[in-house]
């Protein structure tokens, strides 16, 4: 018995050591590491991101033929920083990737990105929307439009079209992104002279919003401003209508709302919901139309903003790799990234700002007839 168990242990340990030793032979090509949350709380978003990314990698490689190929390594950070750290270390030191795309959650990024910065590996965030990410260092880039850019535009358009005078605020206070949404909304609302009737919060994973919504209903606001991710958003929207809050009281959300999954889950209740976002699914730009069609054909559902930003991220990265001779030198790759200007992507024409953030205007959408349409320009 002892012999069996001891040898079993030896086998396990050697497997472990072997996996470290087996650093893959450096294959020619542009090596990209993708860190998405495939399990845990953010799995819903990670799944979209992986689909978007794998689609574009497939397409680019097919088109490139004997040219520069992308070698994609997908890893799961389980929505926790601990795993994110492990994965970043593995990708940087073990697989020796040229750059990393991700991680899904801003909270994780705050811990993992400094690792990449220190090691001189470029990181392109495709879903982090809080402040303090690109400030980590000059190797950190982002193509996901922050709430700081999206929301002022949203409020301006909504106020103009709807004549808002007083609104209620409802947001998730245990997630960096929804909290950022709330903070920016509050600032903008106050400077626009719109009165806030109350501020209510909820936590991630909550399903019952009737207490908060009942209070809000009694306050008779012109609109409900919501900082939530798609999961909670669909619940909030359905329950608001179920409680009898009329459709004339619009529900307005930020980046988190920009998901066809929301329309599917909230059903009819989603009519009239206003979404400030970075990506317009119904844009007629040819690249976007092709993306939406290809994605829908391959995965049997329409893409959401997470998929779109991941897709664009790879487009941007590949462009930089081509411009820097294959991307194998991380420093020249970083410089090439910084120089990206007016690149045609599914997000529209894309450039980086001085601070390596996404430089394009946000859009304001409305859900009409079960689809996202542009509310104003």
């Amino acid at each position, binding site marked *: 018995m002892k012999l069996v168990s001891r040898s079993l242990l030896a086998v396990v340990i050697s497997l472990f050591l072997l996996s470290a030793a087996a650093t893959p032979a450096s294959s020619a090509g542009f090596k990209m590491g993708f860190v998405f949350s495939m399990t845990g709380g953010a799995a819903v978003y990670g799944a979209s991101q992986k689909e978007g990314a794998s689609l574009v990698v497939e397409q680019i490689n097919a088109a490139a033929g004997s040219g520069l190929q992308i070698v994609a390594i997908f890893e799961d950070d389980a929505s926790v920083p601990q795993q994110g750290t492990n994965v970043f270390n593995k990708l940087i030191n073990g697989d020796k990737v040229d750059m990393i795309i991700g991680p899904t959650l801003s909270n994780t990024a705050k811990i993992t990105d400094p690792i990449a910065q220190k090691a001189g590996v470029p990181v392109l965030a495709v879903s982090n929307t809080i402040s303090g990410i690109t400030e980590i260092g000059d190797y950190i880039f982002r193509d996901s439009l922050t709430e700081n850019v999206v929301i002022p535009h949203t409020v301006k358009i909504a106020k103009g079209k709807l004549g808002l005078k007083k609104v209620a605020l409802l947001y998730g206070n245990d997630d960096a992104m929804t909290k950022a949404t709330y903070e920016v909304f509050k600032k903008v609302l106050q400077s626009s002279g719109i009165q806030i009737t109350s501020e209510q919060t909820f936590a991630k994973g909550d399903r*019952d919003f009737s*207490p908060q919504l009942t*209070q809000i209903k009694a306050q008779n606001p012109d609109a409900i401003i919501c900082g939530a991710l798609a*999961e909670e958003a669909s*619940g909030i929207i359905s329950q608001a209508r179920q409680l009898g809050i009329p459709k004339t009281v619009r529900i307005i959300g930020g980046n988190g709302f920009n998901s066809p999954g929301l329309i599917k*889950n909230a059903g009819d209740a989603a009519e009239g919901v206003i979404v400030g976002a970075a990506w317009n699914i119904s844009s007629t730009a040819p690249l976007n139309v092709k993306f939406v069609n290809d994605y829908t054909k391959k995965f049997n559902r329409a893409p959401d903003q997470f998929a779109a930003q991941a897709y664009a991220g790879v487009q941007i990265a590949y462009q930089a790799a081509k411009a820097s001779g294959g991307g194998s030198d991380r420093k020249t790759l970083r410089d090439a990234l910084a120089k990206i200007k007016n690149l045609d992507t599914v997000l529209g024409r894309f450039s980086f700002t001085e601070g390596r953030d996404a430089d394009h205007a946000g859009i304001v959408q409305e859900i009409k007839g079960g689809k996202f349409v542009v509310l104003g320009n």
Partner: protein
Amino acid sequence: MNLLLQQLINGLFIGSVYGLFAVGYTLVFGVLDMLNLAHAAIFTLGGLIALWLVENAGFSIWLAFPLTTVVAGVLGLLLNQVAFAPLRKRSDSQFSGLISSIAMAIIFEAAALGLFGARSVRFPVGTVAVHAWQIGGITITSLQVGIVCVAALLMVILTLFIGRTRTGKAIRAVGESERTATVLGINVNGIIAFTFFVSSALGGAAGILFGLYFNNLTPDMGRSIELKGLAVIILGGMGSIPGAILGGLAFGLSEVLTVAISGTSNLRDAVAFGVLFAILLIRPSGLLGRGKTREA
């Protein structure tokens, strides 16, 4: 006034779902003196399986509901066979049973994740026809009423069953003392298996109702209710079915009112667990419970 009334209705509604869920927990505890932490995972699987039947097999919810409830019960039998029965002869069976239920919970959740994916899903629109009634300034939906009725019905049936039928009496006997029950000729193992069946069936039913109302089913949806369920049965008294029902309602009400008053849902849980903590210190047997709760 309307506001308060509406909140009370909200609370009663969610409370009845909690009660249904907690009843399953307390049933197993009453009989086996053991916490089945896989109950929440069966809750989740109940909701997801019913969804699958409605969406992919085209069943109507009226058929899917009882069918899934039975399937959940069978899962409970499986749970008992694999994780609890082998451990019953051990001296530390309470503890090891707890651990193996945790292990099974992880396995069930992994199965849910593997079979249904991480995305949140909902019952197709039109699964249940929903009418909203506006009485005064208060809104009640037919779905809410339906869910409360089904939950109440199940709980009444269970209480009558335990109180009046022979099997019910046998269950209570085994709960009192396994040895005496054996002497009396009761098939203890069979009764225990049956208890698991009923408990898990109820848990699965609660999952379906929960899924129908909130329309947000994920593989980890059991987690949010798991801790609450435990708190409910402690509040109501471990092993007492009326206690679980009362506890569920009380819990639902306190949750809703806390959120309504404070405007945030964070305090809600803090209040709930604070109360739970206080109860454990002052009167661990809960509102209606019995059973040895202290050592010294």
